[in-house]
């Protein structure tokens, strides 16, 4: 209609009409909107009544009475005050409980969400395989194929075993045992022993009897990889790595000790350990812990303590 190049008069009249039309419907809509506004106001007043303390309500009532006395029309105010007291006495408790309940639901939902996010992040971290490790190992296999084929084959098998363990997998039903975790670590250690030669001596000192104990997945691997990457690899002359397990005060304590360069308090290697700590907290709350200590001989000792449980067969 505006694009109509007709007489400006008609156009102006048309504009006038279209301007007036909404005004009429606004009038029709207005009472509904005012009603909604009042209802909203009423409910926020109701909510306030429900949660406010009696002491405060009395104080506000007193102030209202003072204003009423000044205005010299106390009746409606007194009515309002009496109504407030009755509402608070009758419905206040229920409304208050409703509010608390809805708040609790909201909190529970946030917590659930946080847990899901945490789990997703854990899986992503589990699947993280160092490209540096992978390419170096493949290059070593490439070299061994020419010089020592049987050794190349063994190293490749260890790599396959390691990769399988590092992939996130659905472990339905059965819970991971310490024995499984130690086996997966030994695949990694076999690879590193070939690559680092005399610079790394690994000892696994886990009693047969403890291998059936429940132990969370991928944690021992993190400790072993850290010990090599941050402890032994940066040390020119290399050193020793030991995996050990024992029962201390009814808890299963599994440690990875290295004689490497030792821990740097600023940065470095924190992500893997923080992840282990987070997972322990999620799985066991306060019944498990990760302890990093400095042995008198130097290097680093990382210990994971979890409740001692035998995995159901």
């Amino acid at each position, binding site marked *: 209609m505006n694009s109509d190049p007709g007489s400006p008069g008609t156009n102006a009249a048309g504009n006038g009409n279209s301007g007036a039309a909404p005004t009429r419907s606004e009038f029709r809509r207005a009472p509904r909107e005012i009603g909604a506004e009042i209802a909203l106001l009423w409910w926020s007043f109701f909510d306030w009544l429900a949660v406010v303390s009696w002491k405060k309500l009395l104080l506000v009532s007193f102030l209202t009475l003072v204003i009423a006395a000044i205005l010299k029309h106390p009746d409606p105010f007194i009515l309002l005050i009496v109504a407030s007291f009755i509402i608070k006495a009758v419905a206040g408790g229920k409304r208050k409980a409703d509010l608390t309940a809805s708040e609790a639901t909201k909190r529970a939902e946030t917590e659930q969400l946080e847990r899901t996010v945490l789990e997703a992040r854990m899986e992503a971290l589990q699947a993280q395989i160092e*490209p*540096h490790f*992978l*390419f*170096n190992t*493949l*290059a*070593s296999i*490439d*070299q*061994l194929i*020419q*010089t020592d084929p049987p050794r190349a084959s063994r190293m490749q098998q260890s790599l396959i075993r390691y990769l399988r363990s590092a992939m996130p997998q659905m472990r339905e039903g059965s819970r991971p045992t310490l024995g499984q975790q130690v086996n997966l670590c030994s695949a990694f250690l076999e690879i590193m022993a*070939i*690559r*680092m*030669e005399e*610079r790394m001596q690994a000892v696994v000192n886990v009693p047969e009897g403890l291998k059936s104990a429940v132990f969370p997945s991928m944690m021992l691997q993190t400790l072993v990889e850290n010990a090599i990457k941050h402890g032994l*690899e*940066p*040390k*020119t002359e290399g050193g020793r790595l030991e995996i050990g397990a024992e029962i201390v005060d009814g808890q299963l304590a599994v440690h990875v000790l290295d004689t490497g360069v030792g*821990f740097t*308090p*600023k*940065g470095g290697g*924190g992500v893997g*350990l*923080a992840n282990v*700590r987070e997972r322990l907290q999620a799985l066991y709350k*306060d019944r498990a*812990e990760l*302890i*990093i*200590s*400095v042995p008198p001989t130097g290097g*680093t000792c990382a210990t994971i303590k979890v409740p001692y449980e035998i995995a159901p067969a």
Partner: protein
Amino acid sequence: MPPSPAPTAVVADDERLMRDQIIGRLKQAWPELVIVGEASNGREAVALAQSLEPDIVFLDISMPGMDGIEAAQALAGRAHVVFITAHDEYAISAFEQGAVDYLLKPAEPERVALTCERLRERLKQKPDPMQDLLSKLSQRIGAGDLKPREYLRWVQASLGANIRMIPTSDILFFRAEDKYTRVQTPRFEALIRKPIKELIDELDPKEFWQIHRATVVRVDAVEQVSRNLRGHQVVHVKGSEEKLEVSRTFNHLFKQM
């Protein structure tokens, strides 16, 4: 034209298998090249290069002690450098702009042959000191001096006869006590020798707040702040019964929103 002496090289990699591999492939691609020395870390590589004065040094980037970049900096202008790396995308993009060559592990024979060809050309010139490239590389790899400031993430403390590394995220607060500083966690308390005054400079100011001359608290551990009878603010910490007084100087930290 006098017969030029045979070109010489030193190969440095911390893994023997990798040294064998690169030497084997160099022999195939460039039979005249004489490998005069092998090194298993950066320091050895620099020492060998200084005493043997090879024309070329092959340097693995990640080596213990002194890494390949640092070794190349130490050797600047003395020899032609070829870097060897298993995986480092940042470094590779930097090499491509520079006058230096690199080999990816496992080095394919064809790629080694190409590197040798380039080196034969380059040997006619003096080695490039590569200053710009190396400083760029060391920044990318994280050895440069442009690193953001690092704060303590672990505190080394004694717990009885043992020395523990306590993650800062586990610490509720630090408190000055006589000659020591007490480190409080939900599970135990440990002692360190470093006074609060020095400690506060090493802690991340986003993670820890000083609330008193003698007290530093981890912000996330604060449960609530109340006032005691003397009108001082008092901090309550999750996981500890202890109440920590806030001195007037630090009152502003807990100002109401």
